[in-house]
């Protein structure tokens, strides 16, 4: 992220550099599978030979948040699990995106009960809501393609936590683990 932050969005050459970096970034989105329940099985199915996610550049499902840019929250998030999800989200470095996979994460789903968070957007900023219970693997691939479009159109100056002033770039503190 360091180099392109120096680029101010003007000029033909800099927009081409922006486009190149965006193209590289969107074709190698590394997902962080926050697989909690049934939707996690469909996420596993996206990785299997029939609905190959490797052709999108995303089969690197590393379970460590420090190396990922996309968090796929797959499964019902309960009140007990919510601080854990938030902690993992905070540990991911910028830029990051979130897919809320399935009905349970979008709005609580079929579980209107005392222990289920009725939608993860109560504590996480969500980019794409994916409907289905569970969504078919094709749906998840569609969501991935939409995220790729979104990444492809984002310019460097729109990323959060970066301020460019005359003294140079102010790099954000690399994500202190929050004690909430």
């Amino acid at each position, binding site marked *: 992220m360091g180099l392109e932050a120096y680029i101010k969005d003007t000029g033909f050459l800099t927009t081409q550099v922006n486009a190149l970096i965006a193209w590289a970034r969107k074709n190698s989105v590394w997902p962080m599978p*926050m697989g909690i*329940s049934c939707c996690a099985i469909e996420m596993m199915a996206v990785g299997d030979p029939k609905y190959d996610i490797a052709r999108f550049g995303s089969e690197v499902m590393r379970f460590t948040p420090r190396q990922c840019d996309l968090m796929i929250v797959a499964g*019902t998030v309960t009140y*007990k*699990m919510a601080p854990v999800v938030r902690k993992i989200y905070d540990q991911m470095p910028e830029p990051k995106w979130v897919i809320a996979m399935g009905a349970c994460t979008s709005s609580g789903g079929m579980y*209107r*009960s*005392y*222990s*289920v968070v009725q939608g993860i957007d109560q504590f996480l900023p969500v980019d794409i809501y994916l409907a289905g219970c569970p969504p078919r693997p094709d749906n998840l691939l569609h969501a991935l393609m939409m995220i790729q479009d979104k990444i492809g159109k984002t310019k460097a100056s729109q990323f959060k936590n970066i301020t460019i002033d005359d003294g140079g770039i102010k790099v954000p503190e690399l994500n202190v683990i929050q004690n909430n």
Partner: protein
Amino acid sequence: MDQLENEIHPKILEALLSAKNDYTLDDALENEMVLNMGPQHPATHGVLRLLLRLDGERIIGCVPELGYLHRGYEKMAENMSYYEYIPHTDRLDYISPMANNVAWVLAVEKLAGIEAPKRAQYIRMMIAELARIASHLVAIGAFAMDVGALTIFLWTLREREKILDIWDILCGARFTNSYTRIGGVANDAQPEAIAKAKWFIDQFEPNLSEVEQLINTNRIFIERVDGVGVLSKEDAIDLGFSGPNLRASGVEFDLRRNVPYLCYNEIDFKIPTYTEGDCLARYFLRLDECRESAKIVKQILDKMPAGPVQANMPKKVLPHKDEVYSKMEELIHDFMIVNFGINPPEGEIYHAIEGSKGELGFYLVSKGDGHPWKCKIRSPSFNNIQSLPKLVIGHLISDVVAIIGSIDPIMGEADK
């Protein structure tokens, strides 16, 4: 130690530190470490939190913590009718969803006194066995992947996709299909589904052997899981183990044979049993069970009788949609059943089936209403995880992964 007390709840800390050990050190915590194998972990098969107390790399204390996926199933069951609850039961053991549906409708039918027709029972048996194969394929794949053999996972998932295709043709959803209904199944099995099931069973056995050949003689795999996590026969029965884990410890017990339900007494199958009780025995047992289930499905496909797939009890079983739209009686019955429920007589029952993880049972108490007064789900994974502290103590951290993989817990049903 202070920071420890801030992060772990005092009661859990007390349970962890009270583990007995035979080390006599002046300062008990000099060499020990508490490791949190947290809810988000690639190898814990879901959201299971394990607090491990380590001496070097050897484990001397283990406290599992559940509840990260507690969705309030039992409370929701008290507020919805028996029919409305069928999709919820899908999400219990979400790797073999059809089996949970079958368990629920069998329990409700026992409570209400309904008998499903023969063809429906055979179809239910077929889908329950296919669900067992699907679940064991994932269990084998995930177990091998945890131990390090990544290819197995992809190959078994490829086979599983074929089963999901069969279910897709049968009822429209490849996963979490609420196919069974009280009094039968939702719709008849189409000829394409039956043909695809036949094709699948024919090509399943050679593919499974191909998968086996990759790791069965691999020295690294065998040395990693042989003799790890041994549970003796008496301990297994005492701790409430069930399913493949119990049979791998030497107890020849299977609910399909000992307390038969559906039409299992008309089908001929063996119960594989191993006596060693370690991870390798559980792995081999699951492979054998896959083969037995394939044989059962083949017999079912040969013996499937023709006939209706829903019982003809208008006051308790939903009538067919064509009749609801055209005849008055059926419309009234449909209205009453959907709005007020099937109103079984007052009483209580417990019914269990042999799910892929063990004994999946429902304890239902009815007060004559359309919704249960109490519903308790006896989930096999909950009781299986209870044995983890006993299995894990004395082993290394890398064995914990193998042991959890071999017990094969599913947190959706363990946490309800």
